[in-house]
Every structure is written in C-alpha cells, then in structure tokens.
C-alpha cells in the first residue's frame, strides 16, 4: 500500500444554498496519478478547488502533510500554494509578462530565489515542456497548446508535492491536445503525485493508477483504471463510459 498524500474526509461545498459536493471522502496516494471523470456539472472542478483552498470546502476536512487545510491560517495557506501546483483549463498565464517571467515570478517572489537561479531553473522546465525557444515571447503570441505547456512549466517551477490539472485540454483545439497530453504523460512516468480532471477517457485509462467517477457531487465508483474502464461495477459508470466512447 502506498503512502497517502492528501486525505479527504466528508468534504461538502455549497454555493448559495446549492450543495455541489455532497460529502466526498477518499485518498490521493503519493507517487500515483488519480483521474477524476464524470459528466459535466458533477462537481469535479469544484472538488479540486475545494482541496487546494482556492474555494475552500463548506464542511469536512482536507489533511495534507498532517495539517487540516480547512483550519490553518492565511499565512500557511500561501505556503501551501507552493506545494500544491495547479494547471487550469484556461491556462491563466499572466499576459503582461513574458513566458520566462511567467515561470520565474513565483520562484522569485515566493521562494525568494535570485533572478539568475530562477532563470536557470525556469529554462530547465521550459525545455522539459518544449517551450525554451519561446522564453521571451508574450503569451498572446502562443497557441493554446503552447500556453498550456508554459502553464505546466510554471507550476513545476514551484517544485510542488502534488500537481492538479483541471481539464487541461478542454479549451484546446483538437490538433493541440496531443502535445499537452504527452507532457503530462512524461510527468506521470516520473512518478509525480497528480490529480487530473479530464474528459479524455483513453488518456485517463492510460496514465491513471486510480480513477474516481463522480456524479451529482458524489464519488460513485472508485477503482484502478483498468477495472473501472473494462469491468465497471456501477450501472451509472457503465452508461457514462459507453456514452463517452460513442463520441
């Protein structure tokens, strides 16, 4: 049994009295890839945001490195940003900074690295995602796939313990999806702890060690990826996988 990186206990989230997450409990294992799949509106993205405290849970607890994140102060939460990296569906690169600055800003301002060291490290990660040549470009001149690869380098530069991906390919043109998935796959092979919310079923099946199928704010089925895709236990899982495969 592998070590637990993050433990969720009965996490709920409500917006204006609407309960979006209805009691999520589960474990994110160290060195493994967890894929979260399920129909739109099932609460997948909300769950990621509740766990990394971008929009903290209404109730329940999130235990990371022995601390309940819902109870620690602002100061420690900022510190947490370094340890849980996030890659967004819409990239969210800073348009007023170059590619290199996008990657170095965090290490320099938060980790207080020197400019020289931050640049050196940033170039390493930009090379890893194949974006080193564009270091001095501004984000607006990049394609969606290129932007997302820079966003991944930006998250990696903070040397996070856990990396979250919130539908990383949903905003991309079809021809750009492959390059981003390839980068994520490489990261999975490095045995990084990752959580990926995705609609790419083949990809989830390929890279994930464990899969959660969410529907209506709950985890309907949890299983290793092979079992879940080939022999789903729940009828709802079966139906969802069939529907997606048809597309």
């Amino acid at each position, binding site marked *: 049994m592998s070590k637990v990186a993050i433990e969720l206990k009965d996490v709920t989230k409500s917006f204006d009295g609407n309960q979006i997450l209805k009691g999520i409990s589960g474990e994110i294992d160290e060195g493994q890839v967890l894929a979260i799949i399920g129909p739109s509106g099932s609460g997948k993205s909300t769950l990621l945001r509740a766990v*990394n405290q*971008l929009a903290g849970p209404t109730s329940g607890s999130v235990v990371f490195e022995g601390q309940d994140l819902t109870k620690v102060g602002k100061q420690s939460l*900022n*510190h*947490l*940003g*370094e340890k*849980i*990296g*996030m890659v*967004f569906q*819409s990239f*969210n*690169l*800073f*348009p*007023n*900074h170059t590619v290199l600055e996008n990657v170095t*800003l*965090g290490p320099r*301002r*938060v980790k207080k690295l020197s400019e020289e060291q931050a640049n050196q490290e940033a170039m390493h990660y930009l090379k890893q995602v194949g974006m080193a040549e564009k270091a001095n470009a*501004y984000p607006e001149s990049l394609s969606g796939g290129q932007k997302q690869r820079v966003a991944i380098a*930006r*998250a990696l530069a*903070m040397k996070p313990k856990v990396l979250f991906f919130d539908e990383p390919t949903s905003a991309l043109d079809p021809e750009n999806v492959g390059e981003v998935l390839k980068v994520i796959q490489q990261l999975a092979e490095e045995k990084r702890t990752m959580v990926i919310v995705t609609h790419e079923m083949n990809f989830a099946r390929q890279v994930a060690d464990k899969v959660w199928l969410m529907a209506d704010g709950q985890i309907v089925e949890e299983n290793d990826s092979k079992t879940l895709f080939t022999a789903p236990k729940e009828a709802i899982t079966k139906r969802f996988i069939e529907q997606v495969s048809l597309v």
Partner: protein
Amino acid sequence: MGKNKMGSLLATLLVFFTMAFGMTGKASADDNSLQKIKEAGVLKVATSPDYPPFESQTTINGQSQDVGLDIEVAKQIAKDLGVKLKIMNMDFGSVLVAIQTGKADMAIAGLTPTDERRQSVDFSKVYYTGGQTFLINKKDVKKFKTAKNLHGQKIATQTGSLQNSLAKKYFDDSTLSSMDKTPDLIFSLENQKVDAVGIEKPVAQAYVAHNKNLAMIDAGYPNDAAESGKAIAVSKGSTALVNAMNQSIDKIEQHHWTNKYLKEAGKYVDDNAADTSMMRYWHYFYNGFLNTTLIAVIAVVFGILLGVLLVLMKLSAWKLLAWPATAYIEIVRGTPMMVQVLLVYFGLGALINMPALVAGIIAVALNSGAYVAEIIRGGINSLDKGQKEAAQSLGFSKVDTMRFVILPQAFKNIWPSLGNEFVSVIKESSIVSIIGVTDLIYQLNVVRADTYRGVAPIVVVMVIYFLMTFSLTRLLNHFERKMNHE
C-alpha cells in the same frame, strides 16, 4: 445595513462641517480684530476685480494689479493702520464667506450694506454713494426718456445685487431677469435680448464712455444713502476694526479723495478700453493656461495615487479600511465639485492657512481620486478571475498579486478611461476660479471686465481649452497604440 450606512455617512458629514465652521464662531466671540491685524502687520482684503471702476485689473510694468476706487480706499486704511495691504482676488459670491471664515480681514467689493447682509457681517460707514441708473441702447433714447417708460419692458440685473432687489421692488410689472457677470448683461442689452440693465452709476458711466451704442438714464428710485451706498464688510463683532475703518473713511471724505480715486480708476479703464485687442491680454491667457495646466497635472498625479490607495482599501477584506474608502468615494461623487472646492478653501483653510491655488489643487485632486478609484475598480473587475486564482495557486501574497498581476493589467485596460479623466479634470478644474485661483476662466472674466468685450475673450479661452484637450487626447492615443504593440 442601508440605514446604518446612511447614519454613519451623516455623522461623517457633520464632523466635517463642525470642523469647518466651528472656527468661525470662536473668532468673532471676542473682539481682537484690530489687534490681530496689527500683530500680523498685514491687512488682508477680499475683492472681486471684475467691476470697474470700483475694482478691476490692469497691467503695470508687466504685472497685473488690482486698481479702482475700492482698492484706493483699502490702501488708505492700510496706511492709517500702519500695515501692509494684501489683496485677495476671488469670485464676488465668495468675498463675504472669506471674512466669515477668517481668510480675509475685510471685504471691499462695491458692497451695499443691506439688512440681509448685516445679519451675517458688520459694515463700516458708507464711503461712496453713487446712485442707481439704467443702461439702455442709444437708439432707444427717445422711447425710454425716463425710467418710468421701462415699466412693462424687459429689465436685467446682476444676480444677488442691490439692483436686483430694487428692480423686483419697483418694477414688478416688468419682465425681470438676472445674470452673474456685468459683461454678460451688457451683451444681452446690445443684442436686444433685454431693454435695460439696472446698474450702478459709476459703472454705467464707464460703459457709456467706452461704448457708443449705450446710453444712461436715472433709475429714479427713492433716495436713501444707506440703501444704495458702498461700505466695507468685516466679520461680526469686529467693532475695533469698524471704528478704525470709519476714521479712515472720514478722512477720505474730508479731503474729497473719492473723486480723485474715481478719476484715476477711469484712466485705467480708458487705457484698457482704448486697446481691446486680445493680443494685448496674451499674458493673462498665458498665465491662466499655465495655472490650469499646473492644477490638472498635479491633480491627476495625486488623483491616481489616491485612487490606487482608495481602491486597495475598498477591496480589502478588512472592513475598517474598506468602509471609509467607500464612504469617501460616495460622498465625493455625490456632491458638486464646486461645493468641494469651497469646503477645502474655506473649511480646511480655516484650520490650515493655504493659498487659493493650493486649495484648488487639493480639491481637484481629492475629487479626481474618487473617480480614478472607480475607474481602477472597474478595470480590476473586468479581469478574468483566473488571473487571481493562478497567482494564488502559486502562493503569491495579496500585495504581490496586486503588484505583478492585477494592477498592471487593470491599468492597461483602463488607460483610455484614465485619459478621459485627465481631459475632464482640465475642463472641470475651471470651477476653482470661484475662490480666486487665476486659471483660464478667472482670467477670462478679468479680461471681459477690462475690455468691455463680451465674446472675443470667450472664443480665445475656448480655443485654448480645445487645443489643450485635443493635443492631450492625441498624446494619450499615441501611448495607447505604443502600449498595445508591446
């Protein structure tokens, strides 16, 4: 919550006003009026130099100076007191406020000591009795032989003036109208918008002497010296100062100096009217342009700094910071700039002594800050919330998020709106002329009064304003294009 907010808002306003006007009551409680002037060695006199021959401006050795009957009387009083004279120019409507708030020791501006005014200020004895007349067009001389012929006709007077009340009393069967500035009244007369203008005799004489289209007839009001004479106003309870002024006025009367003063004033009026080309007044417009530019530039720079501060306060999670910023923005945006200018000059000015120009700049900057804050807030709100989330997920502090991510993008988005704000500051700062800041509008009124020309100075000032705002707009567009290419 709404009710609570209103209550605190009123409380804030109340504190403001108590601060502003509390000083006044104290100043007049004990009479050290004369002693104070002698200790300071300066007699501060408020006037409004757009009323020749009582007071106007002229150029002597390249410097614009106040001249006229009133100025000579003030000089004599200062001389008798053995102190220096300091003339403070402002709008006519502000001269009484200036003595009530202690900005000036006395006001001499062709003031008539009406009962209404006596309720808020004290007056010296009358130093000049001129009598009332009507100005008419020369071609109407046969039609309007005496003032009696004006019943049922159109009569105009200066707003808030004695002529205004007299016309209401004795010509209630005529069509009455009023305007702020004497040159405007004359202009309507020349254009036959009105048939007659009720005006003081010496002023009418000056106009008739310099405008061949005009004629003058006696108003025929019952003669009452106290009602139509000129006196000097001081703050209530300044008996010692009134006595000293009356001694000087007695002296002036004994020596019949008034006629000498008027003759001298008439000479300046002649000089001014002899050459009314706008070129002769270029330095008035130039000074006005410099001051308007100075006010706008400083006010915009401090307005932006204040705006950033206000918006950071308003967006703060800390209510103690957010609330005052919100209240400030609401109050400033919900009240006219004119009121704010008066409050800063006379209210804040009662606590800290400052020149009108400084007060004007402060008022415009305080006003602009509130608008800039709202513009910046709009710019921040228009940003994708993903930007903030991305910064947060990287562990940025709030300050760093603002400094490196939010504000630079917000400023780029709001650049056109900030440019508009700059342009409107240039235009709206014209309101500071009411406290005597010598900006373009102020100079406009001075030149109009001096030259007896109604329209030409307006056109000149309009062209100057347009050139200022137009070149600024071009400049801002240039920077905007440059920014977008980066």
